[in-house]
């Protein structure tokens, strides 16, 4: 326990620093500590921080990620020893219960601590409406890590959940409940969701989108009481005696400043709460400051982190006699709530600027809504609202916050662009004063200054300015500004693939083609970095192997290529977690004869393989031992199978629907086309894997629009879609060409794929490649459909070479004893690896112990 005597004794010593106490170790309180540390203020102040929560300060903005796998430690805003190392005393789990202004002491249940200066950074608490029953078990809030633990625990034996409040945080909480597998509803008092940020049209669109995700939305509902439910734990009763039953309730009906300490010691408090501060963040007691969500400045509370950080900077200045003033803050926000983009800039409702003119764009099909609020002379942007697509947010924010003059047709900023590319204000067009990162208040001028001081890349600029380390909303903008400024200074942005080559993948590809280089050794001898090169590494070797294969299509198991491959390519099978492999023969278009099914079953039985139907319409046999692979494949090849390239960065599957042959709606033979295509492009090595889908009509049962290449039958032929993706970041494919006949379809895909193979980065799916392609879809169409680069003949020829030289790698390998030598567990012993042990589950083998990593 610290007694005030001890501290008083110390403070009497003239050379000891003044005592500075910070109450609250949240985002803003912590930011103040960082400011004090970074600016040498610890020479003057001895700082003690009190935090009521158990954890040291953490990133509340990303709190929800706690449910998607992040833990308290990874959310923490600093290393565990940061406070110790910096010499700041952090007392977590110790709440201040009183401020004694006469004695200049704060009181906790552990003692009294004297201060010379005191900063309130107590943040806010979630408001729980005074409804009878609001304190029942399972009625919770969403603000701290402990709250989330409580929600998780309560969700364990619950099936339904309700969030009271349809604002920003309410929707975030709803998403969390959905993630916990609860049937979720949002109950909002106002007539629309997010009443603060969007208008009626936007709110309606938002509701549709959110309902489509399976979250029930109830507006204009005032909860009267909460009582015992019949089917569920609680029953909520609304104003019109309608009821809703649920197991769990999260209140998210707004926040209130935690100003009780300040009230109790007589500091000035606003009418609706909040500790009143001036431009220096001083309260009416000059020894005490308030910052963050507890502070009321000019009648406003700022419920965002960026203004809080600006207050922290102001507080540092005030504490060190600087002259920085807090001048309010922009409340513009860009969010993705339940996967739905919502953006709000400035006077988004247009009700603070009489005479303002509004432009609105609503696309009910794509479900996008955009609104501009423009000054009466049409020159300045006063506000904007976006629902469904935040693509133009960064650009609009720059117009707004830097007062850049609008184009003659302001509406062009929100209308869909026929060129496909959203209008952007290039980084070059921004003034030096443009704020790039509002969390850390970093302007374009600051970024230029760091670059002039020697920062040579994005990491350097981030390190020096902290830009994009707050809410992260500015990441894309920051990168484009940094790249632009580096390039403007003639700094080449380092795009080398790895330490062995100072080239991009595309550069290496061009070298290989132009010089006809056929081996990795040749390439690294001639074009590797002189000082490092010798062996290459696991980045450049597989990338070069893929380039060589795309260009020359030699078997990847040839001696010169073997050391380049990932184990999956070396052994032409995917390695599993216990060192065994999976076997996936090609089943083109998903069509398979009964005889082949039987053959698969026989092989699986004979070699004790686990069998599963994959998401790619074929059958995967798992658990094959290395030394069994050649025998397994011999038998499969004898039964008419060939390799499925499930291991390669190459064509995977062409998914089909049953099509016109059987289906009453089908307008073309989608299975036939899928088989044609799969056989045409099988074996093509590419920067990443490639998937196709072919549907027999617009009902789209083959999900072609989620594939790299999607084909949908029309009365007149085929519509071609490109650059879709499922997986980690799904992306809808875009319509590329319509009503193609078979021949046109092959030609177009030939060119498209070869152009991708040529220009994409390593491990870049078509979707990401497309998003990074300058000029976008329009450019791609010009190249592929109009031959604007004059390379189409070459692309087609190249593809024809690949098609003509196809051979099944497995057939090639089993006919070559030299290649088969690799398929031994031990070169000096015939035994199989004895540590691979299988057990049985649901009548099939599985690895005995699941190892964790």
């Amino acid at each position, binding site marked *: 326990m610290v007694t005030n005597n001890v501290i008083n004794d110390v403070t009497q010593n003239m050379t000891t620093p003044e005592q500075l106490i910070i109450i609250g170790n949240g985002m803003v309180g912590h930011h103040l500590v960082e400011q004090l540390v970074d600016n040498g203020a610890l020479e003057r102040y001895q700082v003690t921080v009190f935090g009521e929560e158990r954890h040291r300060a953490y990133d509340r903005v990303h709190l929800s990620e706690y449910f998607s796998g992040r833990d308290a430690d990874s959310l923490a805003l600093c290393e565990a020893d940061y406070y110790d190392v910096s010499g700041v005393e952090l007392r977590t789990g110790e709440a201040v219960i009183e401020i004694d202004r006469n004695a200049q002491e704060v009181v906790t249940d552990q003692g009294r601590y004297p201060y010379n200066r005191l900063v309130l950074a107590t943040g806010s608490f979630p408001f729980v409406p005074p409804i009878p029953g609001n304190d029942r078990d399972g009625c919770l809030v969403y603000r701290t890590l402990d709250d989330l633990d409580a929600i998780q625990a309560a969700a364990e034996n619950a099936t339904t959940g309700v969030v009271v409040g349809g604002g920003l945080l309410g929707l975030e909480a709803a998403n969390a409940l959905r993630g916990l597998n609860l049937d979720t509803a949002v109950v909002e008092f106002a007539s629309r969701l997010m009443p603060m940020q969007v208008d009626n049209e936007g709110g309606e669109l938002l509701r549709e989108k959110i309902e489509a995700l399976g979250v029930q939305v109830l507006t204009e509902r005032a909860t009267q009481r909460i009582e015992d439910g019949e089917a569920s734990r609680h029953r909520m009763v609304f104003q019109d005696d309608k009821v809703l039953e649920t197991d769990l309730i999260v209140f998210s009906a707004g926040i209130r400043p935690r100003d009780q300490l300040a009230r109790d010691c007589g500091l000035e408090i606003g009418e609706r709460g909040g500790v009143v501060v001036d431009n220096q963040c001083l309260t009416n007691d000059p020894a005490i400051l308030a910052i963050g969500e507890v502070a009321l400045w000019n009648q406003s509370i700022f419920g965002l982190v960026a203004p809080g950080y600006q207050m922290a900077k102001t507080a540092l200045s005030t504490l060190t006699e600087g002259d920085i003033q807090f001048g309010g803050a922009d409340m513009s926000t860009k969010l993705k709530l339940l996967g739905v983009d919502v953006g709000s800039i400035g006077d988004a409702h247009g009700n603070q600027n009489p005479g303002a003119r509004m432009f609105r764009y609503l696309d009910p099909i794509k479900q996008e809504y955009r609104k501009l609020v423009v000054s009466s002379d049409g020159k300045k942007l006063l506000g904007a609202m976006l629902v469904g697509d935040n693509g133009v947010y960064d650009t609009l924010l720059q117009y707004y916050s830097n007062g850049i003059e609008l184009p003659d047709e302001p509406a062009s900023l929100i209308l869909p662009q026929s060129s496909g590319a959203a209008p952007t204000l290039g980084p070059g067009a921004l003034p030096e004063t443009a704020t790039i990162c509002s969390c850390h208040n970093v302007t374009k001028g600051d970024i230029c200054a760091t670059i002039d001081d020697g920062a040579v890349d994005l990491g350097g600029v981030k390190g020096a300015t902290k830009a994009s380390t707050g809410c992260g909303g500015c990441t894309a903008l920051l990168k484009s500004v940094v790249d632009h400024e580096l390039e403007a200074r003639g700094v080449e942005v380092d795009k080398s693939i790895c330490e062995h080559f100072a080239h991009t993948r595309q550069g290496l590809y061009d070298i290989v083609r132009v010089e006809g280089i056929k081996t990795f050794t040749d390439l690294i001898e001639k074009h590797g970095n002189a000082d490092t090169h010798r062996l*290459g*590494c696991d980045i450049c070797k597989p990338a070069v192997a893929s380039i060589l294969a795309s260009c020359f299509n030699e078997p990847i198991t040839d001696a010169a290529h073997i050391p380049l491959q990932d184990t999956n390519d070396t052994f032409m099978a995917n390695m599993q977690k216990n060192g065994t492999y999976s076997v996936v023969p090609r089943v083109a278009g998903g069509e398979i004869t009964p005889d082949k099914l039987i053959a698969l079953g026989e092989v699986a039985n004979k070699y004790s393989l686990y069998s599963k139907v994959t998401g790619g319409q074929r059958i995967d046999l798992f658990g094959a031992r290395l030394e069994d692979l050649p025998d397994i494949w011999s038998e499969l090849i004898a039964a008419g199978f060939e390799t499925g390239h499930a291991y390669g960065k190459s064509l995977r599957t062409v998914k089909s629907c049953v099509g016109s042959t059987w289906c009453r709606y089908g307008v073309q033979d989608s299975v036939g086309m899928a088989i044609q295509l799969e056989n045409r492009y099988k074996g093509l090595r590419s920067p990443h894997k490639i998937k196709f889908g072919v549907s027999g009509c617009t009902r789209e049962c083959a999900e072609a629009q989620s594939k790299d290449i999607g084909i949908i039958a029309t009365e007149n032929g085929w519509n071609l879609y490109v650059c879709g993706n499922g997986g980690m970041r799904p992306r809808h494919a875009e319509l590329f060409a319509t009503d193609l006949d078979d021949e046109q379809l092959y030609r177009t895909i030939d060119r498209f794929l070869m152009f991708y193979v040529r220009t994409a980065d390593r491990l870049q799916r078509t979707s990401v490649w497309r998003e990074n392609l300058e000029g976008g879809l329009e450019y791609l169409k010009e190249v592929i459909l109009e031959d604007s680069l004059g390379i189409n003949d070459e692309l087609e020829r190249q593809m024809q070479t690949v098609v003509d030289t196809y051979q099944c790698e497995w057939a090639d390998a089993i006919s070559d004893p030299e290649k088969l030598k690799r398929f031994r567990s031990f*070169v000096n012993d015939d035994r199989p690896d004895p540590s691979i042990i299988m057990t049985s589950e649901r009548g099939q083998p599985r690895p005995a112990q699941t190892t964790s990593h």
Partner: protein
Amino acid sequence: MTATALKKEMDMADVQNSKAWQKACTKADLVAFSGVAAWLETVDGPAQVAIFYLPGLRGQSDELYALDHHDPFSNANVIARGIVGDLKGAPVVASPIYKQHFRLEDGQCLEDESVKLRTWKIEFKGDEVWVEG
């Protein structure tokens, strides 16, 4: 062989403290710039050993390395099937499962200081590959 028997052998070997050179395989079993696995009975008991062969480049002499075939991160015996390369001048192998790099010279994992694979002395005797263990 029972576990006790094995244990006894180990103890005796410890007392004698004598690792013996033994033949693992021949040069023809190796794959240039890549790895193969061998089963060895060493003084410390049976061991799965990954053997990497880097034929001399530009006048340098051939290099041979022997290290654990066991990957401590996945618990699978797969190290010989990783990609060989060099990082900052030192030859390494990347585990084929979770891609950590191990220095061929001393088995040190580059991503995790506390992890190190066992290594053995290895050399050619004519066309034969011999390991001390």
